[in-house]
């Protein structure tokens, strides 16, 4: 059984999807959490679902805004772990890209994660022997139409995590990313998605184990944050129910 008792852990993008279920699981395992998200109501919904009420902190933060990142860094106490889940997707084909669309996706998925990490390190908010986990995406290694900037932002994030792993090795801080295939979340499965439900059903058949669930990702993240994975750093695990076997 994984145990995160006494660990202070930051989860970004906790108002929905993967980040939300990661936060819930970590709270069940005994972690004290600082959860952040853009949406006030949805972040509070996540907060209400956490175990061990009264020990956690919810901070509204728009990862697109540098001032919000700075305020967040100030608010957190020394961390034993952090999970970077904030992410958005835009399905524009390349010929429809604009500087604005590129910047929006890169800003949330990459730049903000880097700036938040930078701020936390500079202010010495990351304890020795802690564990940092970045949620990347299998799409960073594929060529799915319409995901050019999303895939690029996630490839950048995975590369960043690897370099950071080297920079922080002396402090025994572990840094890992993971690259899940399609996980059912409001971002991938929402009624407002660019991909129709029929096409999603058809695509899911390419996954021997079907699409993933948020809890599949959360379980692995909890393992990386625990003391059970002390020899794992610089990894980028593909987690895809067998999709890339073919």
């Amino acid at each position, binding site marked *: 059984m994984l145990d995160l008792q006494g660990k202070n852990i930051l989860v970004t993008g906790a108002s929905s999807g993967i980040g939300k279920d990661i936060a819930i699981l970590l709270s069940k395992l005994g972690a004290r959490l600082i959860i952040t998200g853009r949406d006030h109501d949805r972040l509070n919904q996540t907060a209400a679902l956490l175990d061990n009420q009264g020990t956690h902190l919810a901070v509204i933060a728009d990862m697109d805004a540098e001032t919000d990142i700075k305020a967040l860094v100030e608010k957190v106490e020394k961390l034993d772990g952090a999970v970077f889940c904030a992410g958005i997707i835009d*399905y*524009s*084909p390349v*010929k*429809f890209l604009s500087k604005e669309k590129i910047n929006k996706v890169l800003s949330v998925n990459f730049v903000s994660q880097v700036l938040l990490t930078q701020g936390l390190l500079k202010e010495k908010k990351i304890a020795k022997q802690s564990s940092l986990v970045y949620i990347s995406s299998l799409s960073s290694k594929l060529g799915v*139409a*319409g995901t050019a900037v999303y895939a690029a932002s996630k490839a950048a994030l995975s590369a960043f995590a690897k370099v950071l792993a080297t920079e922080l090795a002396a402090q025994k801080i572990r840094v890992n990313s993971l690259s899940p295939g399609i996980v059912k979340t409001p971002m991938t499965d929402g*009624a*407002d*998605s*660019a*991909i*129709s*439900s*029929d*096409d999603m059903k058809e695509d899911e058949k390419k996954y021997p184990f079907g699409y993933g669930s948020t809890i599949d990702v959360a379980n692995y993240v909890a393992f990386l944050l625990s003391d059970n994975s002390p020899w794992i750093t610089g990894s980028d695990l593909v987690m895809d129910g067998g999709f890339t076997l073919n």
Partner: protein
Amino acid sequence: MELNTFIQNFEKQLEDVAPGSVGADTVFKDLDEWDSMTALSMIAMVDEEYSVKLTGNEIKQAQTIEDLFNIVKSKK
């Protein structure tokens, strides 16, 4: 918004049709070049030209270009 302009905007996203060969009653999913990429291009075109977020499911529901036009119009 104008149906004729919409048809022109739609046609601009296609690579292999002669200008003026698609119309309001064209069943667009029967076009040879229609695929998931064309669908993404239509969603992006509608966002750019009409500031409407069309969904994959709405494209599935529509049969003709006019059907699609009406969906976009109803979301304006």
